[in-house]
C-alpha cells in the first residue's frame, strides 16, 4: 500500500498523465520498481501478470527484451529502457512505450536488468500467450511446443482465443488438440472435460495417455468405519486378494500408526541379542537358540516380562484387519471424469494393442528377412548341392569386412555401398570357388567330413580376420538417406534400414528364382544335382557347374554380409551368430527349395519376435525357447515345412 502511494507520488512529480486505469508500461514498471530491479522467482510473478494483463501492444516486445537481458535502467532517474549497444560501453536507449530513442548513454550511467533463469522461465510462460498469436508462424509453433511440453492451467484461455484466428491449418489442428488436452486437465466444468475426454477415444497419441493417466491414478487408503462419501472411490480391496496381500494390508495399518509392526524373525533375533544375560536369554541358554521354536519361546518369555512388545502372529494380523476396510481413491474428484477417462483409456489400450501387434508383425517381417538373407546362400550350397558349409557364416563376415574396407577407401557412404555390394559378391564368390576347388570337391560323398573340413576353414578364417582387423567391432555406416524411420503413429514405426533389408531380401528371392529357373546355369545346376553322371553324358561339365553354383551361394552370402553389417556390428565372430540360425532356417523350411528357406525364415522370425513379446527384455530366453521349439518341430516335420516329394527328395 505504501509502495503504491510512493509510486503515485513519484508519478505525480514527473507530471505524467495516466493515473487512470490504463497505465503505460513504464508506469507499471515504476510501480513495481524494487521488484523489477531485484527480481526473484518467488516475488516477480504478480508483476509479470500485471504487465501481461495490461493489454498493451508493447507487452510482447518488452517481455522478450526483458528475458533477453536487453532492458536497462537509467541510474539518474530509475526509468527503464531498451538498450542497444552502438559502440563500446555506449548504448542507445529506447523508450518502451513510444519506441522513440532517448539518446545514447555510457555504461556507467546505466544498469542492466539480468533476470535469473527462474525469472526468465516465468517471463517465457507469460510470453507464450502473446506468441500464440504472433505473426511469424515459426514463433507460433515454438510457443505451441513450449506449451505442449509443460502445459499449465494459465495457457487454456489464451490458447482458446488464438485458435479462431489461426490461419495455418497444421497449427490450427495442433492448437485445437492441445486445447482439448488442456480442457481435460484444467477446465473447471465437468461436462466440458468429459466431452473432451470422449473426443480422444481410440487416439494413439502418447500425449493423450499422458493427460488421461494422471486422472485415474489411485491411492490406497484404510478406514475403520464406513467408506467416506466425499471421495471418488475407485474400489474396495479385500486383503489377501491378488491385488493386496495380507502382509501388505497390515503394513498399511502400520504405516497409518493404527497397529504395531508385525514381529519378523529379524526382530526376534535383535530382541534376543539385546537381552542376553550371562549366556542366557530369559533363562534359555544361548547355545539352544539355533532352533526357531526355542527362539520364539524365549521371545514370549521376554514379552511376558514386558521387556519386548508382544509377538504378533498371523492370527493377530487377520483379526486386526477385520476391523478395517481398504479402498482405493482417485486423485481426481469428479466421478464422471474418472469414468470417462477409464472408458477412453480402455478403448485406447485396445487400439494401442492392435497397433502393437502390427508393429510386432513388422518387426517379425524384418527379422525374417534378415534370416532369409543370411540363409539364402546356404539354401543354394546346402539346399541345392547338399554341401554342408560351416564356413558360410565366415563368408557373411568376409562380405561385411569388404564393405568396411570399401568405406575406408570411398568416404561417400552411398557410393561406397553401391561399390561394396558387387565387390563383396566378387570377393566371396572367388573365396567360394577356391574352397570348392581345393577342398569340397574331394568330399562330395562324405557330408560329415565336409562339415568338419569346412569347420576347419571357418576357424582359420575367423582367426585370420581377427589377426587382420583386430578384435574390436568395425563400423559399417549406412548412407544418410537410410537413417530415420517410417513413423505411422506413436506406436508403429519401422526404420528405413529394415525396409531396405526387406527389399533386398525380395530382390534376392527374385534373383535366385530367375537364375534357377530361367538361366542356363540354373538348369545345369538342377541337372547336376539330380544326376551328375547323366548330366555329364549330356555334355554338361559337372565340375564347372558345381564350382559356379558353390561360388554363387558364397557370393550371395557376401552380399548378405554387407546388408547385415549395416545394422549389426562387424566382428570376426559375427558369422557364429548366423550359422546355426541359417542352418535351422534351411532345415525347418525344407531342404532343396527356396520357398522352404523363405517359409523357414518367416516362421523363425515370427516365432522369435512372438516369444520376445512374451518374455520382454530377455532375448536369450527367446532364442532358447525358439531352438527348443525348432527341435520339437523337426520331430514332426523332419523334412521341413515344404518337403520335396518323390524322387527329388532323395535320401
Amino acid at each position, binding site marked *: 500500500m505504501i509502495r503504491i502511494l510512493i509510486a503515485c507520488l513519484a508519478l505525480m512529480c514527473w507530471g505524467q498523465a495516466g493515473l487512470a486505469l490504463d497505465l503505460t508500461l513504464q508506469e507499471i514498471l515504476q510501480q513495481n520498481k524494487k521488484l523489477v530491479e531485484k527480481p526473484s522467482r518467488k516475488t516477480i510473478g504478480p508483476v509479470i501478470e500485471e504487465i501481461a494483463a495490461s493489454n498493451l501492444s508493447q507487452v510482447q516486445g518488452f517481455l522478450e527484451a526483458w528475458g533477453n537481458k536487453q532492458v536497462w535502467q537509467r541510474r539518474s532517474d530509475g526509468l527503464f529502457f531498451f538498450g542497444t549497444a552502438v559502440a563500446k560501453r555506449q548504448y542507445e536507449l529506447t523508450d518502451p512505450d513510444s519506441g522513440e530513442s532517448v539518446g545514447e548513454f555510457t555504461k556507467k550511467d546505466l544498469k542492466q536488468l539480468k533476470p535469473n533463469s527462474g525469472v526468465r522461465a516465468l517471463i517465457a510462460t507469460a510470453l507464450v500467450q502473446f506468441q500464440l498469436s504472433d505473426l511469424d508462424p515459426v514463433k507460433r509453433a515454438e510457443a505451441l511446443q513450449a506449451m505442449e511440453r509443460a502445459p499449465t492451467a494459465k495457457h487454456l484461455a489464451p490458447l482458446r482465443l488464438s485458435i479462431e484466428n489461426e490461419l495455418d491449418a497444421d497449427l490450427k489442428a495442433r492448437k485445437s488438440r492441445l486445447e482439448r488436452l488442456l480442457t481435460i486437465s484444467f477446465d473447471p466444468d465437468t461436462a466440458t472435460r468429459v466431452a473432451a475426454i470422449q473426443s480422444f477415444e481410440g487416439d494413439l497419441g502418447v500425449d493423450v495417455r499422458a493427460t488421461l493417466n494422471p486422472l485415474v491414478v489411485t491411492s490406497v487408503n484404510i478406514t475403520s468405519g464406513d467408506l467416506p462419501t466425499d471421495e471418488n472411490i475407485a474400489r474396495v480391496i479385500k486383503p489377501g486378494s491378488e491385488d493386496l496381500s495380507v502382509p501388505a494390508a497390515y503394513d498399511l495399518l502400520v504405516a497409518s500408526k493404527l497397529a504395531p509392526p508385525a514381529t519378523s*524373525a529379524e526382530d526376534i*533375533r535383535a530382541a*534376543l*541379542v539385546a537381552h*542376553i544375560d550371562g549366556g542366557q*536369554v530369559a533363562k534359555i541358554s*544361548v*547355545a539352544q*537358540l*539355533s*532352533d*526357531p521354536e526355542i*527362539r520364539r519361546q524365549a521371545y514370549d518369555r521376554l514379552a511376558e516380562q514386558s521387556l519386548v512388545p508382544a509377538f504378533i502372529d498371523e492370527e493377530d494380523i487377520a483379526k486386526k484387519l477385520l476391523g478395517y476396510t481398504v479402498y482405493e481413491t482417485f486423485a481426481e474428484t469428479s466421478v464422471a471424469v474418472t469414468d470417462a477417462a477409464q472408458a477412453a483409456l480402455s478403448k485406447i489400450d485396445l487400439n494401442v494393442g492392435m497397433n502393437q501387434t502390427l508393429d510386432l508383425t513388422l518387426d517379425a517381417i524384418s527379422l525374417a528377412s534378415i534370416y532369409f538373407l543370411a540363409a539364402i546362400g546356404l539354401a543354394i550350397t546346402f539346399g541345392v548341392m547338399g554341401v*554342408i558349409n*560351416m564356413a558360410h557364416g565366415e563368408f557373411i563376415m568376409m562380405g561385411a569386412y569388404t564393405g568396411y574396407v570399401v568405406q575406408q577407401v570411398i568416404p561417400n557412404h552411398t557410393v561406397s555401398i553401391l561399390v561394396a555390394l558387387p565387390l563383396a559378391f566378387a570377393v566371396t564368390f572367388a573365396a567360394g570357388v577356391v574352397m570348392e576347388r581345393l*577342398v569340397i570337391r*574331394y*568330399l562330395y560323398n562324405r*557330408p*560329415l*567330413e565336409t*562339415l*568338419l*573340413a569346412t*569347420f*576347419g*576353414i*571357418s*576357424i*582359420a*578364417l*575367423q*582367426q*585370420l580376420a*581377427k*589377426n587382420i582387423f583386430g578384435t574390436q567391432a568395425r563400423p559399417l555406416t549406412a548412407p544418410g538417406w537410410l537413417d530415420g524411420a517410417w513413423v505411422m503413429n506413436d506406436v508403429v514405426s519401422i526404420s528405413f534400414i529394415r525396409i531396405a533389408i526387406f527389399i533386398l531380401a525380395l530382390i534376392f528371392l527374385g534373383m535366385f528364382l530367375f537364375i534357377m529357373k530361367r538361366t542356363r546355369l540354373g538348369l545345369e545346376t538342377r541337372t547336376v544335382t539330380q544326376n551328375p553322371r547323366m548330366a555329364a553324358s549330356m555334355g554338361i561339365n559337372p565340375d564347372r557347374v558345381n564350382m559356379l553354383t558353390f561360388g554363387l551361394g558364397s557370393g550371395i552370402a557376401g552380399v548378405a554380409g554387407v546388408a547385415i553389417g549395416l545394422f549389426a556390428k562387424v566382428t570376426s565372430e559375427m558369422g*557364429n551368430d548366423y550359422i*546355426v540360425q541359417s*542352418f*535351422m532356417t534351411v*532345415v525347418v523350411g525344407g531342404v532343396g527349395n527356396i520357398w522352404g528357406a523363405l517359409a523357414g525364415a518367416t516362421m523363425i522370425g515370427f516365432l522369435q519376435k512372438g516369444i520376445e513379446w512374451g518374455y520382454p527384455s*530377455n532375448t*536369450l*530366453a527367446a*532364442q*532358447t525357447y525358439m*531352438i*527348443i521349439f*525348432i*527341435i*520339437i518341430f*523337426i*520331430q*514332426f516335420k*523332419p523334412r521341413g515345412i515344404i518337403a520335396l516329394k518323390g524322387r527329388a527328395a532323395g535320401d
Partner: protein
Amino acid sequence: MRTSFIAKKPSVLVFLLALAAFTIAVTILSEGFGIGVISTSFIKTLGKTLCLCLIAVAMDLVWGFTGILSLGHFAFFGLGGYMIGMWLMYERTRLIVSEALMQGQIPPTDAEVIEGIGNQIFGVVGSSEFPIVWAFADSLGLQLLLVVLVPGILALIFGWLAFRSRVTGVYLSILTQAMTLALALYLFQNDSGLRGNNGLSGLQNLPGVETPQSIVSMWFFLASALALALGYTLAAWIVSGKFGSVIRGIRDNETRVRFLGYSVEGFKLAVFTFTACIAAIAGALYYPQAGIINPAEVVPIASIYLAVWVAIGGRGRLYGAVIGAGFVSLISTWFTGGQAPDINLGFYTIKWVDWWLVLLGLSFVAVTLFAPKGIGGLFDRLKKEGGA
C-alpha cells in the same frame, strides 16, 4: 569272459600299461607326492587332459563306431561339471557362512544360514532365493547321482525324439548343435538359476578339506586317470562284442541293419545316452581341476573341437581318440599359452598366439583330405610295413 576280451584286444592292455606308466611317472615327478619336477598347475593341466581324453573316448564311441556325429557331447560334459560344481559351491559357501554367523551373539537358525548362502551365491545375479534346481545341492550323494542323471536323461529324451523321427547324418549334427546352443543360451541368462555368465567358481577348493592344492590336484589327477582307464576298458569291451558289431553295422549301413531285424533306434539311443553319461563324468572330474565353469564352456564350438580331436587322432579306434585329444589339447595349451617361440620372417613376425588357430583349422582340413584315419592311421601303416 574278461580274460578272453583282453586277449582278443591286446591294444587295451597296451593302453592300460601305457596309462599306468604315465600316471606313475607323473606321480613320482609331481609336487604333491613326488620330487616336485612338475608344478601343481601343470598337474592340473595333465589331469584336465585326461578328462578330455575320456570324453574323446565317448565321442569316438558315438561317432567313430556308431556314425552319429554328435555336436552336443560337450554340453553333457558341461552339465556334469555344473552338477558337481553346485555341490562344491554350496557346501563351501555353507561352511564359510555358518562360520561367519557363529561369530554372532546367538547361534544362527537354519533359515538364516540358508539365506546367507543364497546371498553369497546369487548376490551377483541380484537375487538371494534358491532356485528349484539347487534343491539337492546340499547332498553330495544326490548331486553325484545328478551328474549322471541330468545329462543322461537329457540325452535320452533328445535322442529318443531325434532317432524316432529318423533324423540322421548332417541333420542330426545340426540338431545336436542346436541343442547345445539352446543350453548355452539358457545358461547365459541370469535367471537360469546357475548364476548366468558368472558361472560357478571356486570349485578347486574341496569344502572342509584343508589339504594344500598340490595334494588335491594329485587326487584329481589320479581319479581322472582311473576314470579314463575304466572308461576306456568299458568302451573297448562294448565294441568288441556283438553290440559293437551291430553299432559298426549301423555306422556303415543303417538300412541294412534295420532290415536284418535289429532295432537301430534302440542301439543308437543306448550308445548316445551311455556316452553322454561318460561325458558328464569326465566333466565332473574336469571342472574341479579347472576351478570355474561358465556357459562359455558349453557353446557349440567346444563340441566341434571335440570332433576335431577325435578326427585328428583317428576315429573308429579308441586309442586314436585318446591320442588326438591328448595331443591337440596339450599342443593348444602350449601354443596359446605363449610358450611357443615366435617365428621372425624379417618382414613379419608370426606370433603363435595369433596364428595357432589358423594352423589348427588348416591342419584339420589337411587331415580330413589326406589322412582320413588321422594319427591312428599311421600305426596301421607302420604295422603293414613291419609285416611286410
